[in-house]
């Protein structure tokens, strides 16, 4: 039994926990392009002060949080009715409907983002449609804007929202809804006083599963966003791969981690709680 505990424990401590200690150590170092690897170790706060005083980095932090928050909200507004509708479908249909939500998650993330590149380009299918139907005379280009980034995040992360929502809505006791109706509650009142509070664990889990990775997202702003779309995941990537500034990239990683440690802990607590209920 000790061995069974030790195997995953040692693996994750070595390859997941230990690396964070290294990132922390290197984040206080300075960049030295002549060294291999390009790092001078030290105890300098230079990287951190830069991250929180330079306008560019500040804009990237705020941009990430704002884009992640609005996309999470849109995903929730789209995912909630979907999850709800699946629980109301015929029981024999439900596994099929759920599988259809999961399937995109099993196909390539990169390919799903790529799909929107062709759709959103200036002569893309969406613009042709808008022009031909006369809805918008000159739609402009959506690709390369923040709109496209939002759309990409909502599209890519929708399955992560629908699944936990479905799991909590499925357990909903429908006799409570009947009781509410018998006592004279309108369907809307019943929804806000019975359905929504009971599905709150699913709402929280779904929102965290979308928000946390969206804050650090790189592929979507890189492929769908423009030069003015500033997100912190892309900043980290560029500092590392383009500028080869490893200490600064490490500092970005540490700050991102500190920023997300609250949401991550909340997610873990909820996972543990739902396990106890089982």
């Amino acid at each position: 039994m000790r061995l069974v505990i030790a195997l995953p424990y040692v693996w994750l401590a070595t390859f997941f926990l230990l690396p964070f200690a290294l990132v922390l150590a290197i984040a206080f170092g300075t960049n030295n392009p002549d060294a291999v690897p390009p790092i001078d170790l030290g105890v300098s706060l230079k990287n951190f002060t830069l991250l929180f005083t330079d306008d560019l980095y500040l804009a990237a932090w705020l941009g990430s949080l704002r884009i992640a928050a609005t996309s999470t909200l849109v995903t929730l507004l789209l995912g909630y009715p979907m999850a709800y509708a699946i629980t109301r479908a015929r029981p024999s249909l439900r596994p099929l409907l759920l599988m259809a939500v999961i399937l995109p998650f099993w196909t390539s993330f990169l390919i799903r983002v790529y799909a929107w590149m062709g759709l959103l380009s200036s002569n893309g299918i969406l613009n042709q449609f808008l022009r031909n139907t006369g809805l918008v005379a000159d739609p402009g280009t959506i690709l390369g804007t923040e709109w496209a980034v939002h759309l990409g995040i909502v599209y890519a992360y929708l399955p992560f929202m629908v699944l936990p929502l479905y799991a909590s809505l499925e357990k909903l006791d429908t006799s409570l809804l009947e009781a509410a109706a018998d006592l004279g509650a309108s369907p809307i009142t019943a929804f806000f006083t019975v359905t929504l509070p009971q599905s709150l664990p699913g709402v929280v889990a779904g929102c965290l599963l979308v928000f946390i990775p969206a804050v650090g997202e790189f592929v979507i702003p890189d492929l769908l966003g423009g030069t003015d779309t500033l997100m912190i995941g892309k900043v980290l990537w560029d500092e590392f791969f383009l500028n080869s500034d490893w200490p600064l990239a490490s500092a970005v990683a540490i700050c991102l981690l500190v920023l997300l440690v609250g949401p991550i802990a909340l997610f873990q607590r909820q996972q543990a709680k739902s396990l106890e209920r089982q």
Partner: protein
Amino acid sequence: MVGRARFALTVLAFGYAFLYLPIALVILYSFNESRLVTVWAGFSTKWWSALFANEAMLRAAWLSLRIALVSATVAAVIGLAAGYVLARVPRFFGRTLFGSLVIAPMVMPEVVMGISMLLLFVVSDQLVSWPNRGFLTIAIAHITFSIAFVAVVVQARLADFDRSLEEAAMDLGATPWTTFRTITLPLIAPAVGSGWLLAFTLSLDDLILTQFVAGAQSETLPMRVYSSVRLGVDPQINALATIIVAVAACALIFSGWLTRRKA
């Protein structure tokens, strides 16, 4: 009641159209004569021929497949252990940390995991001249984030079924290992199988972690695709996407069949 049913139908139609229309269009335009993915110029399979003649792409695909096989298998073993511990061992020293370590990679931003693992490999290379960046480091990175997904599936399956079978075996004098081998493992084998499949597809798809830890010589399929789509849309990628969607659908159906089949 009729109004509610119509609402549900509308929501589902809209939701699934949103999920599937982009993918359907990607597949459709892989058969387009024109290089542009915006104009339909007649049916053609030339992009498919071009894809199968694209040696860099094929080499990358072969490397990705080998990495996915290795990492899914190792992740299945470690994930099985982790899921079993989470579901069956309520108390031991460091249990809370253990739970966090298993779940955290699921939500950790990939850029953060990527840079931290790379630094580990660089430091280790400096100290003991090992490991060389390439197949091994990519596989280790993929294993590390796949463990969580296998563990969650295994844990859910274990929480689902009756412990009395295991207890009966122990009462009859079976050692914990024999009980695990003859009772527990056959019952959760489908979950391990579907966890393996999930780890396999995650490994095949990963770009960010891989880009950090890959080194100069190795190029996996997502890395190849990424450097190609950065330059714009390319119908060859549409053809590749069609294959990926088909394979993913088969894997998912097989995984669904595995988990639903009662042992």
